[in-house]
């Protein structure tokens, strides 16, 4: 589903114009991005929680050069699913 399709549906549901929905959508996503880039985590209820984590520097083998490489540290996004969504997708799987 594309963004415009999502926006259309949301706009109908919330009785807002599509432009308003879009501005909400963009600010929402931007806000989440800023939070993560500051290293703050948050939870979207029913979906899961996000947090930024520092992946430590490590060494790894590069098969192309056949040499070890030094990988610098990196801050990455981690997501862990909520228990509600876990149960939902797994129950649905059993019913099928």
């Amino acid at each position, binding site marked *: *589903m594309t*963004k415009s399709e*999502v926006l259309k*549906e*949301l706009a109908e*549901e*919330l009785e*807002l114009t599509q432009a*308003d*929905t879009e*501005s*909400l*959508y*963009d*600010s*929402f*996503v931007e*806000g*989440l*991005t*800023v*939070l*993560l*880039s500051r*290293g*703050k*985590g*948050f*939870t*979207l*209820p*029913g*979906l*899961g929680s*996000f*947090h*930024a984590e520092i992946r430590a520097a490590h*060494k790894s083998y*590069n098969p192309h*050069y*056949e*040499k*070890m*490489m*030094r990988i*610098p*540290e*990196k*801050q*990455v*996004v981690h*997501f862990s*699913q909520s228990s509600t*969504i*876990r149960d*939902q*997708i*797994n129950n*649905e*799987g059993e019913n099928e």
Partner: protein
Amino acid sequence: MSKKVTYAEIIEALSQKTGFNKQKSEAFSKALIAEIKKELQETGKASITNFGSFKVKEVAERQGQNPQTGEPITIPAHKRVSFTPYKALKEKVNAKYAHLETELIDEEKSKTEPAEVAPLPSEWPEREPKQEVFTPKTTYGDRKKGNNIGLLIVAVLTLVVIALASLWFVFSSGDEQVASEKAALEQPQTPAAAEQVVPGETDSQPQTDSEAENVEAEEAKTNTQNTSTTPADVNVYTVKENEWYWRISRTVYGKPEFWPLIFQQNYTSDVHPDSLEKNIRLEIPVLEGTASNLTKGDYRRLAEASGVVSDAYRKFGRTDKAAEYERFARKWRRAGM
């Protein structure tokens, strides 16, 4: 905890930013989450533009352990939601560390070693500055000493030049001061004049400097001459961690398949061809030709060396490898005829 932001805070920030009231903002985020969930359940995939995508993944059954009692348990196959951040999000989150880059650990060595191990005598004068950087790695103690003295001389000379220049500056500015009190326009002349004289003073430095370099160059030349006159020319290489002949050969010659040459040069009766200890010094024979254009003598030496490798493998019961290198030996021998 300061590291976590509550849902209520997110909603408040959203309503402040967009001007909608909190109810509307919350309704929006609820609806969006519901939309994602619905899509995940229906298609197994969902995405938030500019943020990331969610996907339902199948997890296979596996053996686990009860963390409290330690008894083994079977974790049944199940599904889970995974999240992949999009590039924009990844880059923003990693902005703090974006300047860091991966690097090959052996890279530095492979760049410097070939120049060091197979130096071309004709290039010596041009390579002189580089030579200074490399010397700590080389094993010629006397050359190292020469360099240290050279560096010392350069340092002392620069100090002297600076002292002279500053002395001159003090004197000349002393003279100028009288004049400058009368005419402020003349002041800029002082630094300019000082600059003019400094090159004159430094003229003596490059001369002595190059003398020192000449001495070094000569030393270096004699070092290479001692060894490069005969085809059995040898350089020394210190083995680093995780290195084998094959890899060293590639570093030194640019061709891994020449490793028997190194093995033969350093062969003592019962060395396994696949074992090599860290920090030992290996003698690296120098080719008569170049790696891409071998002379017949080089081919003969390769053939001989492959024979030695073959023998060494046979001693350790590796008949397969022994046969392989016998074949190589024959191949090189034909090429050397």
